[in-house]
Structure formats: C-alpha cells, structure tokens
C-alpha cells in the first residue's frame, strides 16, 4: 500500500511537471490518471521492489554522478581511438561473474556497462555476464571492477 501511494505521488508530480498548467480541471485529470495507472499497475502486479524501486532513490544520487564521470572518461577514450589514424582497437569478449543478486542490480550493472562507450553487455544472466569491449584493456577493466562494487552497494540501497 505504501508503494502504491508512493507510485501515485511520483506519477502526479510527473504530470504536474510535464503539464505546467495548474487549473483545477487539469490537476484533477492528472490525479485521476495517476490513480488509474496505479490501479492498472496493481492489477498487473507491477508495484514491487522491481517495478517501483523508490527505495534506491538516495543510493542513485551517489551512483549516477559517479556513472556520468565514468561515461565522460570512457567516451573521451573512445574518441581518441576513433581519431587515431592507426585505429588502435583490440576487440575482446570477456565472461565474468557479477556480484549483484537482485534483478534491479543486475540490470543496473549491465546497463551501466553498455552506457559507458567501449563496452557492451551481450549476455546478462544471474552470475554470468558476457561483455564485448573495444580494447583488451577495456575488457580487463570490467571484471571485478569498481562499477561492480558500486552497483552492489547501490542495489542494497546504500
């Protein structure tokens, strides 16, 4: 019930921010739509730790800035490779065991790997990731990485 209330709250705030017109009718329509969506989501049994991971909000505030920094650094590295006349790539596949146990944690880790230029997650399963990296160094850097540890902390909500 608490999760449903929180989902309705976030949906209504989203409506208010996207609409920007604060008339009684439109705000009432927004409230009605939010409650209707929550009702549908409850019927589909989507309102759980996976469908509405509100408990990860505070952890995201520390994880996302770090991820943005990583993305910028690896994007610059890939840019340097593209602009190098010799195109110094050494594509490598690497299979490793991620530390995460929850679905949200595994998806966050896999998406973070794909989001950082130079690495793409090809296969994602509990306890096994297959990653394609643009360089051999990039492939070595994804196994037992700082990202792995940070996402482990993130999925625990810390």
């Amino acid at each position: 019930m608490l999760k449903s209330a929180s989902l309705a709250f976030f949906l209504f705030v989203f409506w208010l921010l996207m609409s920007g017109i604060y008339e009684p009718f439109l705000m009432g329509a927004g409230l009605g739509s939010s409650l209707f969506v929550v009702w549908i989501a409850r019927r589909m049994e989507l309102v759980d730790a996976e469908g509405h991971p509100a408990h990860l909000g505070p952890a995201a505030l520390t994880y996302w800035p770090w991820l943005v920094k990583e993305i910028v650094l690896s994007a610059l590295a890939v840019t340097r490779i593209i602009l190098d006349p010799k195109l110094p790539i050494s594509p490598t596949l690497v299979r490793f065991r991620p530390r995460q146990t929850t679905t949200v944690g595994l998806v966050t880790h896999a998406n973070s790997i794909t989001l950082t230029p130079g690495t793409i997650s090809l296969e994602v399963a509990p306890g096994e990731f297959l990653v394609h990296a643009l360089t051999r160094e990039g492939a070595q850097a994804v196994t037992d990485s700082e990202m792995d540890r940070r996402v482990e902390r993130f999925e625990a909500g810390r």
Partner: protein
Amino acid sequence: MTLLVDVLSWACFVAGGFFCIVGAAGMLRMPDVYTRMHAASVIETLGAGLMLAGMMLQAGLTLVTVKLAVIALLVMFASPTASHALARAAMVRGVEPLLDRGEGASKP
C-alpha cells in the same frame, strides 16, 4: 550574465556536435557491427548529453529544463537497453565478432 550563459551553452552545442561527428566517423571507420556500436555510443552519451546541457542552459530555471532533464533520463535508460537488444540480436543470428587474437595485432 546572459553573455556568460550564452557562451557556456554554445560551448556545449559545439562540443556536442563535435562528438556526434566523431561518433559518425567512428561508425564508418570501425570494422564490424559490435565495434561500430561502441562508436555510436559516443553519440548517445556525450553528443546528446552536451546538446541537452546546452539547451538546459538556454532554457534557464523553467519547466522546459525539467522536461529536458526527463529526456536525458529517458535516453540514459532506453539507449543501453536498445544497444543490448541490438548486440544480442546480432549474436543470436550468428554474427561473429571480429576479435583481436595475435599479440600486437591492433587491426583485425
């Protein structure tokens, strides 16, 4: 103050455009589908990100900036999902990635 914001936002636009061009050049230079996707991810992260940052500076503290932030969030969630689906589809269809095997062989 407006001049400073204008200069900063145009710097973001120019840098974002530069990374879009670099990503496009990378997509042409790379040898196979997987390495090309690495080049494309420069466009969707730094290219789109800097463009959105420049637009946010132009919009200032308004609801437009909030909407741009929501777009940035959407790109950050949707683009890795799409990239993963594309790479996996190529994998399932049996597209073998070009791999670097020999020592010092930097161009496969």
